[in-house]
C-alpha cells in the first residue's frame, strides 16, 4: 500500500513540476537578463563617459593657424631707426598683425571692423612677431607670410566644436568674421597643426595659449613627495604589524585606525593639511610639498593594507627555513620575506599613487587652486596639479576651455592607465604560486 501511495505522490510531484517549468524558466531568463543588462549599462556609462570626453577633447591636441602676410613696418616697430633693444621689445606688434589682416581681408576697414579682425588672431601672434624681431632685427622692413595662432573663437569653429551657423550656441563670431574665415579657408590660408603649446605651457586666461605643463610638473613634484614619504612609512608599518608586532591592544588599535583612515573622506585630510601643515607649521600655500604630504597621508592606509596582504602571502615555511639557519628576525624579513613581498607592495603603492594623482578635493583645501602661469621649479613653488587644473578649466566660461578640459582629462587618464598597466605587468610577472 505504501508503495502505491508513494508512487502516486511521486507522480504528482513530477506532474506539478512539469506544469510550472516554463514559468520558472521565464523567471530565470528575466533574472539573467537583469544581470546582463546591469553590466551592459555600467559598461555603457563608461563608454559614454570616455566617448564624450574624447569627442570633446581630441581636437585639443590640434591648433588652428592662419597664414597672413606681415609687413615688418619700420614706422611701427622702430620709427627712429635706433634698433634699441628696449624699443624693439616694447613696440606695438599687435598693430603689425592687425595691419596684415586689414590688408588681406578688408582694406577699407573702419575702427569696428579692425576690432573684429583682431579678434581672429590670438594675442600670442604679437609675441611671436616680437620674438622674431628681437632675435633678428634685420627683418625690419621686410615682408613675410607667417602662420599665426588663431583665436580660440575661430579655433572652435574651424575644428567644428561649435556650429558654423551665425548665432549658434557657443559660436561668438559675427557674420563678417565668418565671411573672412570662409575667404581664408578658400585660399588655403588656414591649417590645423599639432598643438605643442598645450604640452609646453602653463595655465593662461586665453584658452588657445593655455597648457598643462605647469600642472604636470606640479603633479610630478607632489607625487614624488608622496612616494618619498608614504612608501617607506607604509612598508615599515606593514612589516612591523605583520612580522613583529605582538598582538595586544595597542597593535589592535593601530589596525582599527588604519582601516578607518582608509575610509575617511579625502576632504577631511584636506582640512588636516590646512590646519596642521599651513596654520601650525607655516608651510607655503599652494605648494606641491604640502600637497604631497597630504596625499601621502591619504595613500598610507592603502599602501599598508596592500603591503600586509603581500607579506601574508609569503608562506611561513620560508621564515622557518631562514630561522632554522640562525637568521635573526630582522634578517629573515630583510633577506627573505621582504624581497618576496616587494612586487605585491610595489603594485599596491603604484595603485595608491594612481589614486593620489587623481585626488582633487584635499588640494583645494590647501590652496592649490590659484591661477598660476609659471612652471614650478621646486616643490616649494606655488603650483597646480593636473586634476586641479581640470577643475579650474571646467569652471571657466569660455567655450574653448571645454575642449582644453577634455584634452587635459585625456592626458590624465593616459597617465593613470599607464600606471595601472605597470602595476598589472608587475603583478603578472611576479605572480607566484606557492
Amino acid at each position, binding site marked *: 500500500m505504501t508503495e502505491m501511495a508513494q508512487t502516486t505522490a*511521486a507522480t504528482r510531484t*513530477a506532474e*506539478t*513540476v512539469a506544469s510550472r517549468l516554463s514559468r520558472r524558466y521565464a523567471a530565470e531568463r528575466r533574472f539573467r537578463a537583469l544581470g546582463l543588462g546591469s553590466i551592459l549599462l555600467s559598461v555603457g556609462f563608461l563608454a559614454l563617459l570616455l566617448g564624450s570626453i574624447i569627442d570633446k577633447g581630441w581636437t585639443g591636441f590640434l591648433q588652428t593657424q592662419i597664414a597672413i602676410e606681415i609687413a615688418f613696418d619700420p614706422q611701427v616697430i622702430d620709427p627712429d631707426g635706433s634698433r634699441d633693444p628696449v624699443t624693439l621689445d616694447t613696440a606695438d606688434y599687435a598693430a603689425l598683425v592687425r595691419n596684415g589682416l586689414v590688408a588681406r581681408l578688408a582694406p577699407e576697414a573702419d575702427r569696428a571692423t579692425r576690432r573684429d579682425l583682431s579678434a581672429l588672431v590670438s594675442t600670442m601672434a604679437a609675441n611671436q612677431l616680437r620674438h622674431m624681431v628681437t632675435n633678428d632685427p634685420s627683418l625690419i622692413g621686410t615682408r613675410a607670410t607667417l602662420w599665426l595662432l588663431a583665436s580660440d573663437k575661430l579655433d572652435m569653429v574651424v575644428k567644428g566644436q561649435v556650429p558654423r551657423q551665425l548665432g549658434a550656441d557657443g559660436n561668438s563670431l559675427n557674420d563678417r568674421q565668418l565671411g573672412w574665415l570662409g575667404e581664408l579657408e578658400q585660399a588655403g590660408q588656414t591649417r590645423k597643426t599639432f598643438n605643442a603649446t598645450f604640452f609646453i605651457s602653463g595655465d593662461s586666461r586665453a584658452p588657445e595659449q593655455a597648457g598643462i605643463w605647469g600642472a604636470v610638473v606640479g603633479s610630478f613634484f607632489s607625487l614624488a613627495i608622496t612616494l618619498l614619504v608614504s612608501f617607506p612609512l607604509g612598508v615599515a608599518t606593514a612589516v612591523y604589524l605583520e612580522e613583529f608586532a605582538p598582538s595586544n591592544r595597542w597593535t589592535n588599535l593601530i589596525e582599527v585606525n588604519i582601516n578607518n583612515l582608509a575610509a575617511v573622506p579625502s576632504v577631511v585630510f584636506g582640512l588636516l593639511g590646512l590646519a596642521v601643515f599651513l596654520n601650525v607649521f607655516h608651510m607655503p600655500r599652494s605648494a606641491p610639498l604640502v600637497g604631497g604630504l597630504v596625499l601621502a597621508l591619504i595613500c598610507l592606509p592603502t599602501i599598508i593594507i596592500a603591503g600586509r596582504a603581500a607579506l601574508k602571502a609569503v608562506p611561513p615555511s620560508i621564515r622557518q627555513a631562514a630561522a632554522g639557519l640562525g637568521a635573526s628576525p630582522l634578517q629573515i624579513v630583510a633577506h627573505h620575506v621582504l624581497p618576496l613581498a616587494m612586487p605585491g607592495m610595489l603594485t599596491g603603492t603604484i595603485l595608491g599613487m594612481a589614486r593620489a594623482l587623481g585626488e582633487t578635493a584635499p588640494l583645494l583645501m590647501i590652496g592649490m587652486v590659484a591661477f598660476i602661469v609659471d612652471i614650478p621649479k621646486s616643490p616649494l613653488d606655488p603650483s597646480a596639479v593636473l586634476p586641479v587644473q581640470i577643475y579650474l578649466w571646467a569652471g571657466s566660461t569660455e567655450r574653448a576651455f571645454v575642449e582644453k578640459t577634455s584634452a587635459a582629462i585625456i592626458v590624465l587618464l593616459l597617465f593613470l592607465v599607464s600606471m595601472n598597466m605597470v602595476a598589472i605587468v608587475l603583478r603578472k610577472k611576479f605572480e607566484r604560486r606557492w
Partner: protein
Amino acid sequence: MNMNAVLPQGSSKISAKALDVHYSEKQALFGVDLDIRAGEVTALIGPSGCGKSTFLRCINRMNDLVDGARVSGSLTLDGTDIYDRIIDVVQLRARVGMVFQKPNPFPKSIYDNVAYGPRIHGLAQDQAELDEIVMTSLEKAGLLNEVKDRLQESGTSLSGGQQQRLCIARAIAVEPEVILMDEPCSALDPIATAKVEELIDELRENFTIVIVTHSMQQAARVSQRTAFFHLGKLIEVGDTEQIFTNPQQPLTQGYITGRFG
C-alpha cells in the same frame, strides 16, 4: 515519456551502461555498468578517489555545476537517458533528491528549510497543505518531536545530526523517487549516525536510495546491494551479504578485509 512507471520492488530503476566521466583532462569513471533497483538501498563503497561520489553526482547531474565535466555512455532513469536533451535538469532533481556529506541547511528557519522544495516546485496549493507537507516530512525524518516547538528557529541552530536529518526532511518534502546520499554520516558522531542509519532503513519503503559511504560497517548495516569501486572502475556489485561474506574479486576481498583503503 515513461517517467512514472509503477515499478515493482527489485526491478531496475537506474541503469548505467559504459558510463565514462572526465573532469577536464582527468578521467574519473571508466565504463561503469551498474543497475540500481527500485525500493532498495544501494551502497557505493571503495577507497577515496575511487569515483563513487562522481557516479552518485551523475544521477542528478550535479556534475553539470563542475566546469569541464563531461559524461558519456548511457545513464537511464526509468528507461529515459538522464543526459538526454528532453530531460530537464530541474525536473530531474525534483525526482532525484540529494543529501550531502556536510549538513547544509539554508540559513533560514527550520520550517522554511523543509518548505523550500515544495515552494519552488509549487507542490502545495495553500498554506495548510504546505504545513502538512512540512510536518509529514519532519515526521518521516524522525525530527518532528525534537523541533516541533521551534519551527521558526534557524536551521543552523540545530546540532549536526539534527541538521543532517533536517536536510533529509528537506529532500523528502519534494516527494522524489530516488534519494542520493553522499557520505551523509561522515560529519556526525556515532549516536547521530545511528539515528540517520535507522532513518535510511525506514525510508527504503518509500524511496529508492543510493548511498555513498566510506564505512563498510555502515554499508553492511543499511544496504541491500553493494557496489565496490576502485580507481574509477566498478569492480563488483552484488547483494550486500554476498559482497561482505563471499566477494568474487580479489580486490573486493582485499578492501573489505582491510588490506587497503
